[in-house]
């Protein structure tokens, strides 16, 4: 089965990339001047406390030995503890990763929902005002700095109109007095599992503004990619034939032409997901969204390397798995490849 062989080859390749990234993180950790012992010893350690911390972390062991322990720990999924908070990193990841993934999925969905239809309409009305405004809108969406857009959306929708919450993942009434049992970490899913419709609506409302901010860049790209793909497809014989068969314009656009434009849509999913995983640092800070971005940016500023390594590892694995899935989806979307 050609597809299976292809997946196998790509997995091996991805494993190589993940190892490469681990090595890169470890090298940067050595090169960057930092003193893990002082960080580990606590906010205001005395000289003796720092010395004790040095032993505990066996920082004086030779480099290859430390890389070996580092790599085996990573491989076995034991991310160790954060120098700064001495908390189990795996525990923190369990809380922060789902928050980031939830935002990534929601913003990617929004980007596709906004970008693709706009792209189709712009291609259908090429040259006329929907195309002009759509194209300009997509360039503006790509050019808009996320942190500035976040501030504007907060100001308009949360402070002035008050139709959407300003920040956080759940409103305080729910999170303090009647907290959601954490099953998947995805609030909306957990709310459904717990049969709590109020919490479901609340989690949904909290997702809208941050996801919209994160979706602006990928939506712009989705619109442009879909538009150029659709323009090329609408010239094709089978679209002319469909028109000759008397099919209605929307049915031709969305039913016949768009399925051929799934390629660009998939690349946008990849791009938007990647952007949400790492580009979300600013959005997470502004919307107080307890995700990986904020967690790792604090770790980077404090040079808390176990956390940096763990988050980079997790994000890279998400990256690599996602790219693999998208490549497979690219193949599946086009029957000519899938069934050959």
């Amino acid at each position, binding site marked *: 089965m050609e597809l299976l062989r292809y997946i196998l080859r790509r997995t091996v390749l991805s494993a190589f990339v993940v190892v490469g990234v681990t090595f890169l993180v470890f090298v940067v950790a050595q090169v960057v001047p930092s003193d893990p012992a002082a960080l580990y010893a606590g906010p205001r350690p005395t000289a003796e406390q720092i010395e004790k911390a040095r032993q505990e972390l066996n920082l004086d062991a030779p480099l290859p030995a430390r890389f070996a322990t580092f790599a085996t720990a990573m491989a076995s999924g034991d991310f160790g503890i954060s120098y700064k908070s001495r908390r189990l990193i795996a525990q923190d990841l369990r809380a922060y990763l789902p928050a980031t993934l939830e935002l990534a999925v929601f913003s990617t969905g929004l980007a596709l929902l906004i970008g693709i239809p706009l792209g189709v309409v712009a291609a259908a009305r090429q040259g006329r005002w929907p195309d002009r405004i759509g194209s300009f809108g997509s360039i503006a969406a790509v050019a808009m*700095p*996320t942190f500035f857009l976040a501030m504007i959306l907060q100001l308009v929708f949360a402070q002035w109109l008050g139709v959407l919450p300003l920040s956080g993942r759940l409103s305080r009434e729910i999170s303090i007095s009647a907290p959601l049992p954490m099953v998947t970490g995805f609030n909306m899913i957990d709310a459904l599992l717990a049969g709590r419709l109020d919490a479901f609506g609340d989690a949904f409302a909290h997702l809208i503004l941050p996801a919209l901010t994160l979706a602006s860049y990928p939506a712009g790209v989705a619109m442009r990619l879909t538009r150029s793909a659709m323009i090329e497809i609408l010239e094709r014989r089978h679209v002319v034939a469909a028109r000759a068969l008397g099919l209605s314009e929307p049915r031709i656009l969305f039913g016949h032409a768009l399925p051929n434009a799934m390629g660009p849509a998939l690349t946008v999913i990849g791009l938007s997901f990647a952007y949400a995983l790492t580009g979300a640092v600013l959005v997470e800070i502004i919307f107080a969204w307890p995700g990986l971005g904020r967690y*790792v940016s604090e770790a980077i500023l404090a040079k808390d390397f176990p956390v940096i390594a763990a988050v*980079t590892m997790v994000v890279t694995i998400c990256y690599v798995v996602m790219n693999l899935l998208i490549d497979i989806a690219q193949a599946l979307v086009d029957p000519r490849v899938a069934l050959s």
Partner: protein
Amino acid sequence: MKKLVQRLGWPGTIALAVVVLFAAAAILAPWIAPYPAQGAGAPNVAAKLQPPSAAYWLGTDHLGRDILSRILYATRVSLTNGVLIVAFSLLIGLPVGLAAGYFGGWIDEALMRGTDVFLAFPALLLAVLMAAALGPGFLNSIIAVAVTWWPWYARLARAEVLVLRGQPYVEAARLAGVSHPRIIVRHILPATGRPLTVQAALDVGPALLTAAALSFLGLGVLPPTADWGQMVDAGRKFFPARWWYSAMPGMTIFLVALAFSVLGDALRDRKGGAARASA
């Protein structure tokens, strides 16, 4: 002028005008800024956090400095930031892409796998990590972002070269015994140059935004020199009561990034331009 409009279309021409305007502002900042001293950083505590007025067209910041002058001076930092990031990325990415595409075989495999590792590394994370490692500062923030951008250009260059290498005139030159470097420089480089420069123009906007994001995290230039991202961050805690502090630099970033994107677009599907080598 008419020929320009004809070649780039109206949006492209306006975008080019905006870009040229900001480039001029960067060079002439000390002469056109209403308060040059404040632009460079001199505090003016008496006029702290004033709204836009006749004296201060765009209002003042938390040290009373005129925001218009600060933005003009910041143009030097932010604009060159964007351009240099793209330039550095091209500097690294182009040769790697050329070598990989031209020589192929294990060189191609090795270089491309290396690029994959950088591409797999989450971009902003690597940039923030490099910035933290190198410490804040103008050049450091450029290197930090360039480190994450060059792989895109390497891939683009490699794709172009693969297309060109198949061209008969390249094979003919090879058969005629022309040495590899000469072929690359005289045949491959010029033809790869055009699509890459177009892509570079398109990328100055996003590069500017990434640099602004870095300085928003406090990893940009050292005070008192200002850059747009830093100004938006500094004004954040006074938002929305003193909206102008963040709004003015924020709008500037948006305008410039928009101009570069529109210009890049116009250059890419230029009317009458040479047909693009690759799709």
